[in-house]
C-alpha cells in the first residue's frame, strides 16, 4: 500500500451515461437548429401522428353486432322453443365448434358472446365482432349451424327414444293399455319424422351487416383493404410517437436544418454543460436551503382549540365508521373470494394480483386486502379502520406540507379546513367500504410523491426521486388515476429546475407496464362518449369536483366551475411568476395536487360518462383534495408581499384568509349532515345485506335477486365458501 488514494473507479454505467449524453446533445442540437417554419411543421406532424391516432381510435366502436333472424318452429312432437338458454347451449356443441373453426376460422371465444333475443317478429341471433364483416360472417355461419345442431340433437333423441319405446313395448308383463297407447302414438310421431327436416329453427339466409356507427368507423371502412378492427388508442399513440421520432431523426440526417452545422460546431461545450446538468457529480447541485419554519407561537387556549378543531371531524367520522361499519363483503369486494378460492386450490399466481379491475390495476390494495383477510379471517370492519388510518397518514402529510408552505394564519385556518375536508362524512361510500382502499392509498401515494419531489429532493436528489418513484408506483397500481402522478410530477420538477429525466423514464416505463395487455372494460361503456357528448362531459367534471361542497346538483356545478376557475387563475399566476423561486417552491406541491385531482376528474368523466352525469359519493375523496389544493394555493399566493400591483399587508392577508376560509368552511359543512344520514342508511343497507346473504340457503333465495346484495352470479357459491371457512362473519 502506498498510502495514496487512486482516482475513483469509473462507474460501469458511465459509458452508457456518456452515450445517452451524446444522444441528448445531438437531439438538442437538432432542435436548436430548427427554424420557425420547420418547427411548426414538426409540431403539426407530431400532433397528427400522436394525438390523431389516439383520438381516432377513441372515437371508434369496439365491436359491431350483426343479427340474423331465427324463427323457432315445431318439429313433430317437439314444441317450438324461445328460451335463449337453449340456443346458448347449442353453441357449445362440439361439432358446431368444429364447423365454426372450419367455415369461419372462429375460435369459441370469438362467438362466446353470441345471444338470442326476442325480436319484433321472431327471435334474433346477435353476434359481436371487431369488424362489421366479421360480425356478419359469424352470424351467417353460426345461425345455420345452430339450426343443423338442433336437428342433429332431435335425430339423436329420436333414434334413442325409438329404441327405448320398442324395448318397453316388448317388455313382459306389458305396460298398462293407456301407457301403451301413448307410446304407440309417440312412436308413430317419431317415425313420421324420418326423412323430414328436423331443425327446430329456420334461419334467414343473410345477416344484416352492421353499419359503422361513428365517423371514425366510416373512415376506417372507406380505407382500402378489409375493415381494420379498433386498435388501442394508447398503443396507436405510441406507434405514432415512434414514427414521429424516427422521421425526425431521419430528417436530421437527410434534410438537416440549415443551421445544424453551426449548432453542432458548438456542441462540445454544450454537451459538457448538458452532462453536468443531467448527471451532476454528487453535491454539485447546491442543496436548496429549506425555508425556515417559524415556531407556531400561539397562546395555549388557541393551541387547545386548534387541536380540538383538528381532531373533531376525524373522531366523528371514526365513530360513524365504528357505528355503521358492517362485516359483510359488498359489490367488488366479492371478487376477492375468487382470489381466496384460487389460493386454496393452489392456482393463485402473480398474474391474479396484477389483473385488471375495470380500468384499474389495483395490485397494492388487492395485496393489502388479501393479507388483511388472512390476518383477520376477513373481518371487513378491520379494513375500514385500515382505510381510516391511511386517510390519517395523508392528513398528517398534508398538515406538515401546509406548515412548510404557509404562514401562521394560513396554516391554522388551512389545517382545520383540511381536517374538515379530508374526513368529511360526504365520502360515506368510501368510509364504509373496505375495497375503497384504492382511493385512500392512491391519494396518500400521490401526496407522498409530490412531497418527495418538492421537499425531500432538495436535501438529496437520489432519495427524493427514489421515494417519489416508489410512491408513484403505489399510486399507479392502486387506482387508474394514479397514472397522472407521473406527468404532474414531471411538471413540478421542470418548474423547480430539478433533475427530471429519471422520473420521466420511470413514468414512461410504468405507463408501458400498466397498459401492457390492458383491455378496455366493456362493462364501463365507450371511452369516446366524451367526444360525442362534450356538454355532458363538462357537466360531469364540474359536478365531480363541486358536488361534495354543495347541497344540490345545480349549486354543485357552480361550485365546481368556481373551483376550477380559481385553480386555473392561481396556477397561471404561479406559472407567469415562475422566476420567483420562493413562490414556486411554496406553490409546487399544491399546484401538482390540484392538477392531479383535476386530471382524475377528467379521466373519470371519460370512463364513467356512460352512467350519466352523476357525482358518486366515492368521488368526494378526490374532490375534497382538489378543494384543499385550491385553498392552499390561494393561501400561498397571499403569503407573497404583493400580488400584482397590490401590496399584501398582514391585515389584508387575514381578511383574505377569512374570505376564502369561511365560504369553504360553510361549503364543507353543508353536506356533513347529509353525509351522516347517508352513512346511517348505508349501514342499514349493509346490515340487511349481511342478514340476507347469511340466511340464504339456495341460489334462488329471493333476497339474492337484489343486484346490490348479489351482484355476481357466483355469489351463492362464494357465500357457501365463506361459510365453510368461517370468514367475513359467515
Amino acid at each position, binding site marked *: 500500500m502506498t498510502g495514496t488514494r487512486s482516482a475513483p473507479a469509473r462507474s460501469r454505467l458511465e459509458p452508457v451515461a456518456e452515450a445517452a449524453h451524446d444522444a441528448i446533445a445531438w437531439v438538442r442540437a437538432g432542435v436548436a437548429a430548427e427554424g420557425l417554419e420547420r418547427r411548426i411543421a414538426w409540431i403539426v406532424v407530431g400532433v*397528427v401522428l400522436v394525438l390523431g391516432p389516439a383520438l381516432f381510435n377513441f372515437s371508434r366502436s369496439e365491436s359491431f353486432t350483426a343479427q340474423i333472424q331465427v324463427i323457432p318452429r315445431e318439429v313433430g312432437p317437439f314444441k317450438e322453443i324461445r328460451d335463449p338458454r337453449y340456443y346458448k347451449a347449442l353453441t357449445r356443441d362440439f361439432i358446431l365448434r368444429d364447423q365454426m373453426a372450419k367455415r369461419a376460422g372462429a*375460435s369459441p371465444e370469438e362467438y362466446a358472446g353470441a345471444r338470442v333475443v326476442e325480436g319484433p317478429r321472431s327471435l334474433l341471433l346477435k353476434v359481436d365482432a371487431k369488424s362489421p364483416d366479421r360480425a356478419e360472417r359469424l352470424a351467417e355461419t353460426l345461425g345455420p349451424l345452430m339450426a343443423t345442431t338442433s336437428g342433429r340433437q332431435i335425430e339423436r333423441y329420436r333414434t334413442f327414444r325409438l329404441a327405448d319405446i320398442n324395448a318397453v313395448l316388448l317388455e313382459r308383463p306389458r305396460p298398462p293399455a293407456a301407457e301403451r297407447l301413448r307410446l304407440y302414438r309417440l312412436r308413430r310421431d317419431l317415425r313420421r319424422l324420418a326423412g323430414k327436416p328436423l331443425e327446430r329453427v329456420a334461419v334467414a339466409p343473410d345477416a344484416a351487416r352492421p353499419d359503422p356507427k361513428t365517423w371514425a368507423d366510416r373512415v376506417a371502412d372507406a*380505407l382500402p383493404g378489409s375493415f381494420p378492427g379498433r386498435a388501442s388508442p394508447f398503443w396507436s399513440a405510441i406507434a405514432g410517437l415512434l414514427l414521429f421520432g424516427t422521421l425526425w431523426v431521419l430528417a436530421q440526417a437527410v*434534410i438537416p436544418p440549415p443551421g445544424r452545422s453551426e449548432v453542432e460546431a458548438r456542441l462540445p461545450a454544450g454537451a459538457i454543460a448538458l452532462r453536468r446538468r443531467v448527471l451532476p457529480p454528487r453535491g454539485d447541485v447546491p442543496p436548496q436551503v429549506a425555508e425556515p419554519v417559524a415556531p407556531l407561537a400561539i397562546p395555549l387556549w388557541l393551541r387547545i382549540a386548534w387541536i380540538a378543531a383538528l381532531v373533531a371531524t376525524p373522531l366523528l367520522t371514526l365513530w360513524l365508521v365504528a357505528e355503521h361499519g358492517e362485516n359483510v363483503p359488498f359489490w367488488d369486494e366479492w371478487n376477492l373470494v375468487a382470489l381466496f378460492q384460487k389460493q386454496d386450490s393452489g392456482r393463485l399466481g402473480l398474474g391474479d394480483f396484477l389483473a385488471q379491475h375495470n380500468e384499474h390495476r389495483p395490485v397494492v390494495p388487492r395485496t393489502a386486502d388479501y393479507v388483511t383477510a388472512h390476518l383477520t379471517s376477513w373481518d371487513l370492519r378491520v379494513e375500514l379502520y385500515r382505510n381510516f388510518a391511511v386517510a390519517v397518514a395523508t392528513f398528517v402529510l398534508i398538515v406538515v406540507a401546509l406548515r412548510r408552505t404557509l404562514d401562521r394564519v394560513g396554516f391554522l385556518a388551512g389545517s382545520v379546513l383540511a381536517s374538515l375536508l379530508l374526513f368529511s362524512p360526504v365520502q360515506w361510500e368510501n368510509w364504509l367500504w373496505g375495497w375503497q382502499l384504492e382511493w385512500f392509498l392512491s391519494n396518500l401515494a400521490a401526496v407522498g410523491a409530490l412531497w418527495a419531489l418538492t421537499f425531500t429532493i432538495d436535501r438529496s436528489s437520489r432519495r427524493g426521486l427514489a421515494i417519489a418513484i416508489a410512491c408513484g408506483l403505489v399510486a399507479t397500481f392502486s387506482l387508474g388515476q394514479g397514472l397522472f402522478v407521473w406527468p404532474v410530477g414531471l411538471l413540478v420538477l421542470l418548474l423547480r429546475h430539478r433533475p427530471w429525466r429519471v422520473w420521466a423514464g420511470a413514468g414512461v416505463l410504468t405507463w408501458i407496464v400498466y397498459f401492457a395487455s390492458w383491455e378496455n372494460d366493456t362493462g364501463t361503456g365507450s371511452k369516446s362518449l366524451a367526444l360525442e357528448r362534450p356538454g355532458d362531459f363538462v357537466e360531469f367534471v364540474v359536478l365531480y369536483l363541486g358536488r361534495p361542497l354543495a347541497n344540490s346538483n345545480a349549486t354543485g356545478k357552480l361550485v365546481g366551475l368556481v373551483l376550477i376557475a380559481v385553480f386555473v387563475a392561481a396556477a397561471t399566476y404561479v406559472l407567469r411568476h415562475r422566476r420567483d423561486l420562493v413562490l414556486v417552491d411554496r406553490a409546487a406541491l399544491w399546484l401538482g395536487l390540484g392538477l392531479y385531482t383535476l386530471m382524475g376528474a377528467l379521466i373519470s368523466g371519460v370512463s364513467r360518462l356512460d352512467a350519466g352525469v352523476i357525482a358518486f359519493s366515492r368521488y368526494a375523496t378526490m374532490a375534497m383534495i382538489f378543494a384543499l389544493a385550491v385553498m392552499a394555493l390561494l393561501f400561498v399566493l397571499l403569503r407573497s408581499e404583493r400580488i400584482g400591483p397590490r401590496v399584501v399587508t398582514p391585515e389584508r392577508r387575514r381578511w383574505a384568509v377569512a374570505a376564502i376560509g369561511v365560504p369553504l368552511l360553510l361549503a364543507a359543512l353543508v353536506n356533513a349532515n347529509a353525509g351522516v344520514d347517508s352513512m346511517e342508511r348505508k349501514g342499514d343497507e349493509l346490515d340487511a345485506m349481511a342478514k340476507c346473504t347469511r340466511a340464504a340457503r339456495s341460489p334462488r333465495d329471493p333476497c339474492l335477486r337484489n343486484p346490490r346484495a348479489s351482484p355476481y352470479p357466483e355469489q351463492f357459491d362464494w357465500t357457501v365458501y365463506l361459510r365453510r371457512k368461517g370468514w367475513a362473519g359467515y
Partner: protein
Amino acid sequence: MTIAGVCAIAAAPVALLAAVAPAAGFAVAGLAAGFAVARRNRERLLDPASPFVRSATVVLLAAAIAGFAVGVVGVGLVVANWPATVALATLVGGVLFLAWRAPAWALLGGLLLVGFEGSIKILLGFEPTPLPGDERAAGAAAIDLALFGAVAGVLVADRLETPRAIWAQATKGERVALRLLGVWLALSVLQIAQNENLVNGVEGFRLFQAYTAVAVAVAVAAWSPRVRRHALPALLAVTVVVGLYAALRVAIGEAHAEFLFAAQVRTTSFYGGQLRALGSFSSSIGMVSFLTPVAIAGLVAGYLSPRMRLVGWGAAALAIVGILGSYGRGPLFGILVGLLFALVVLVGAGDVSRRRKAIAGALVLATVGMTYLGVQVASRGSDRLQERARGVLNPGQDKSVKLRFDNWRDRLEDVRSHPFGHGVGWVGGASANANGDEVTTDNSFLKVLVEQGVYGLVVFLAGLVLALWALTRRLAARGGEARAAGLAALAGVVGFLVLSISGEYVEQPGKVVAWALLGIATACAFAPGQDAREAEA
C-alpha cells in the same frame, strides 16, 4: 420544375387513392410529394423578386401544403388503424437507417428484433394489415430485412478488409478450417437445387445457412478495439431485455394471445396441460435456443471480467429462469457442457491461479446444482413434468429421449439409401406442407447429414471443429478482456452446438445469438492491438 410537374406530383396521391392503392403507399407518396415540392422550390418561394414566384407561388404553395397535409393525415390514419405494422416498419426503418450511419448499432437493433420475433408476429396478428401474406410471414420478412440490412451495412462499410485481415493472420490450419466452411456454404448453395421443391430449398437455406453471415458481420463490427470492448456487454444487455420478458412471463403467466399463438405452432407447447414458457418467441424451443448461449456467455463473462459481471450474471439469471419455465432438458445439458468447456480452457491456461481455477470449478458445480433444484421446483405443475424432471438424471429411460433415438435411427436408415442427401430445405421448417406436417430429424447435425449427404456433413463438421479448436487455442493464449469476452462467447457457441444435438435448433432464433457470439470470439481471438485497459489487465 414546371407547374404541370408540380400539379402532377400533387395529384399523384389523389390518383393513387382513386385507384384504391394501399393506404400506406398513398400516404407516403403524399408526404413525399409535399416535401419534395416545398424543398425543391424553397429558394424560389422565398425570393419575391423571382419571376417564378409571380406566376406560380400560389399554385406551388397550395400544392405543397395540400400534399403535405394529405400525406400527414394519411400517415396518421395508417398509424391509427395499423399501429403494430407502423411500429414494426418504423423499427425496421430505424435499423436500416442505422445500418447506413452506424452499422454496429444496427446489428444490435436486428438482434433485439430477433429476440422479440414471437411478440412481433402476435402483434401483427391483431390487425388485418394490408400487407401480403400472413402475420408470421410478414413478421419474419421484416426481421430478416432489418437483420440482413444491418449485416450488409457492416460488410459494405468494411469493404471486406476485416475478412482479408483475418485471412492474412490465419495459420495454415486455420485457413483449412475457413476453406472448409467456405466450401460447405458453396455446397449448400448448389444443394438448394438438389431439393425437388426449389422454394423449399431456398427457404431451407434462408433458415440456416444464410444466418451464418451474422458471424462474419459481428466479427467485422467487433474488429476495432472500441467496439470489441463493448461488443459482448452490449449483446448481453440486449438479451437482458429479452430474458427479462421471458422471466416475467414465467412469473406471471403468458398472455391470452400468446397462449393461442403457442397452441397453433407445430412444436410441443404443452406438457401435462402446462404451457411451456415461450417469452417473446413463437415457441418454447425458439426461446431456449436464444437463451441457452446467452446464459453460458453471461455466466462465463461475469466470472472472468468484473466489468461484465452485472450485465453477464443478470442476463444469465434471467435466461435460466426462462429456460426453467420451458421445462426443456436439452438446454440444461447445453449449459453444463458450455460451462465445462470454459472450465477446461481455464484450467489449461497457465496464467490463471489455482485459486481462481478452484473457484471456477465450484461455481460450475453450484450453477448446475441450483439449476437442477430449479428444475425440480418448476416441475411440480403436473405428473408429466415430474416425469420429465426425473428424465434429467436418467435420460436413457426417458420416453421423449427414446422417441428421439427412434427418429435418429430412421433417419440414418434414410441416409443409407440417399448418401448424397435430399437437398437443402428437405428437413425442418422449410419442409412443412400446407397441413403443417414436416420432416424432422431432432438433431441439427443429422439434418445436415440428411439434407447434404455424408460429404456435406463431413465438410461442415470438419470446418466447425477445426475453427473451434483454432479459436480456443488463440483465446487461451490471449490475456485480459480479450480472453474473457472471447472465451465467454465461444462457450456460448459450444453450448448452442450441444443443444443442437437434441433438435433442429440451427433453424431457431437462437442461431443469430450463437453466430453473433462466434463473431465476437473470432474478433477477440484475431484482432490485433489491445486497448490500454486491456494491456493493463
